[in-house]
């Protein structure tokens, strides 16, 4: 009845050989698939190397006028690079910069690039401040996976948000965010908005479960962002000089301020929607505090970008990972695809 040790060791060896084969095949397959991504994908957007400038004048050979700069997601040698397209022809040929970023935003001649920097024993990420020619000016370590980034309209202030994994020992499935604000003139870095004083209903509020994400700048001192605590999200208005944030309203995530500073586009958690797709793109008028639901009826998990005073751009999942879409900010019209295989856009020039 008892099986001898020799037999059992034999069985174990056989099983290990089979499983090792499966594991090796999986790694080889994934590696081969990655290699094939270096080849241009048929039907994908055309990309060619060139120079990109974040201002209207600098940079040789760049097309004049307004342009969109974003991370291109299509397979090929320029995958994940920042590319530029004329705003008038967003689906047209892309000019690739050679600069790779996971997340990006730019304004006033300053770019913020959240970049992956493989370390010795693990993944690490860095926030890199770019000048108008996309050269690195200074970089900072990040404590987690990049998710949002914004530059103030003048180009002086920069903010970013990363996801920080919970400590794996206690509960591996809890996550938090960390949002930082950087002054590129003084290089003063506020590592975490959680160090700011929170004012809720006129009183100082503190809690260990506070999380901030999605900064949008009004000017070089004031900003809006999302605060989450106690299972609730709030729109907060922040002051970099006073180091305070004040709650304004609940259920507002990833705000994005319109160019004229009067409206906020944000993702609103709508009751009754599925738990894994709860958000609708919504615009809040800051003068009347009235909300307008937009014509986009799909779940949007992005910090929207104002292309101009009337149109919003945002990312939705697509064949190449993510596509950019637009929708009118007044609640009318209908969503239109701006371009495929793109993420994290900014309007420059």
């Amino acid at each position: 009845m008892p099986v001898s040790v020799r037999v059992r060791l034999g069985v174990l060896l056989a099983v290990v050989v089979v499983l090792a084969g499966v594991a090796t095949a999986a790694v080889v397959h994934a590696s081969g698939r990655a290699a094939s991504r270096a080849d241009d994908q048929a039907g994908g957007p055309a990309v060619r190397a060139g120079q990109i400038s974040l201002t209207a004048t600098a940079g040789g050979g760049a097309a004049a006028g307004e342009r969109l700069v974003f991370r291109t997601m299509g397979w090929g040698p320029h995958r994940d690079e920042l590319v530029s397209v004329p705003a008038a022809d967003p689906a047209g040929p892309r000019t690739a910069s050679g600069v790779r970023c996971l997340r990006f935003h730019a304004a006033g001649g300053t770019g913020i690039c959240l970049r992956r920097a493989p370390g010795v024993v693990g993944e690490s990420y860095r926030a890199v401040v770019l000048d108008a020619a996309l050269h690195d000016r200074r970089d900072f370590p990040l404590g987690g996976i990049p998710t949002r980034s914004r530059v103030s309209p003048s180009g002086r202030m920069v903010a970013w948000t990363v996801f920080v994994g919970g400590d794996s020992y206690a509960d591996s499935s809890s996550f938090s965010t960390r949002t930082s604000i950087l002054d590129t003139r003084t290089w003063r870095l506020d590592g975490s908005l959680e160090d700011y004083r929170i004012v809720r209903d006129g009183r100082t509020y503190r809690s260990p479960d506070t999380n901030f994400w999605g900064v949008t700048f009004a000017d070089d001192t004031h900003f809006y962002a999302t605060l989450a605590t106690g299972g609730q999200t709030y729109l907060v208005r922040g002051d970099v000089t006073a180091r305070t944030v004040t709650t304004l309203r609940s259920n507002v995530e990833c705000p994005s301020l319109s160019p004229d500073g009067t409206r906020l586009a944000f993702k609103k958690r709508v009751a009754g929607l599925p738990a894994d797709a709860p958000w609708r793109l919504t615009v809040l008028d800051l003068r009347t505090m009235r909300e307008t639901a937009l014509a986009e009826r799909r779940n949007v998990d992005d910090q929207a970008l104002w292309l101009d005073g009337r149109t919003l751009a945002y990312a939705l999942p697509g064949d190449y990972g993510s596509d950019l879409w637009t929708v009118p900010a007044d609640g009318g019209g209908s969503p239109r695809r701006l371009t495929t295989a793109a993420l994290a856009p900014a309007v420059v020039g």
Partner: protein
Amino acid sequence: MYVADTRTRPAGPGTTPGLPAPPPATRAPASRTPSDLARRAVPATVLILGAVSLITDVSAEMVTAVLPLYLVTGLGLSPLGFGLLDGIYNGASALVRLVGGHLADRGRRYKSMAVLGYGLSALCKPALLIAHSVAGISAVLAVDRTGKGLRTAPRDAMISLAAPPEAQGRSFGVHRAMDTAGALLGPVVAFVVMRAAADGFDAVFTVSFCIAATGVVVLLLFVPGRGPAPAAVLSPEDAVPGDPMPADSMPAEPGPAEPGPVSLRAAMGLLGGRELRRLTLCALVLGLATVSDSFLYLMLQRDLDLSVEWFPLLPLGTSASFLLLAIPLGRAADRFGRWAVFLAGHGGLLIAYGLVLAPVRGAALPIGVLVLHGAFYAATDGVLMAAAAGSVPARLRSSGLALVQTGQAGARFACSLMFGAAWTAWGDHTALAVAAAALAACTVAAAALRPARSAPDQGRQPCP
């Protein structure tokens, strides 16, 4: 190892089926005397269970290490919604643990329950390849945790039943050290696979599954099956002549009523026994003052203004210290008393709180805190199981251990909620100072609550 051999062999013909001989590699040289070995060796079953835990933890921590990245960059999801599920699932997880513990005792199906638990978790790895939504991934993680809940108490019962009474602390120490080693290796393996597979998350999940499946196969092939083996070790009638403390194996059992009922009522009736009731109560009281790891790391990070790059390394510091100290402190528990070491561990945690609160700052501070934090786990995690094993009859071992674990986990969860509320009301430092005061009080109370050495059934206590 040798000790386990000699103990299981004479168990008689009726007990041999399904009982495997130990692997040759673990057989001790014959020249050593059993008592000599008893001081050093741990039973083969404990080593095998340790290997299963090590392998499984490599697999589990591989997934943990890449999951946030997978959610954000692979699936484009916001992981923030995940935290909300945690609280809800905590309650269900406690229930699963009790059920797993109880079912394992019925018909001594420790191994079957362990196989079910490890198997469920292994199957979750390929399931991650299919689940592409927050709801789907949450469901997979919930099943994974169900597997963990089901297997923990039966596995600890197998360890305690395989180890001789005087080596309980050491055996749990060895198991916990192997377990933690796996947890430390997992992220490294994940990183290597990610590099080789050029960010192929599917490759990471597949490799993780293969490793987990190997763990299940090792468990199936090498851990003794149903009943007789472990029971033979500890039931008084099978005690080996020359065993230093033969009667100790059944400390809380009132008389030779070994083949008693293994009903739910009997399991709940365990708390009627003074020994286990006090132990559970003490673990519960101390758990109420144990601030969760994440709070401690958060305070360290805020107070020391640690660079964000260092923050992910804090849990590794605790794990490394746990890994290095688990065996020495397990041995110390066997020698100086499990309860004493358990309380001393909480004393160490108290000092760690004190260091965080103290005005002194410097590079050595986080190191000191993390070493003490790991020492706290090394002195309490396996040691509590070793102490509890001595208070639970063999036939209800798994139920009893599940009861103690659940009580402690529930108390720690309650502490997290209270600590969060205290932080909100008074700020982080005051909250930690209150927690430290509570921990000091609870440690003193637990020391006082501990049954007196002169208690009637104390003579049965293996190694107090």
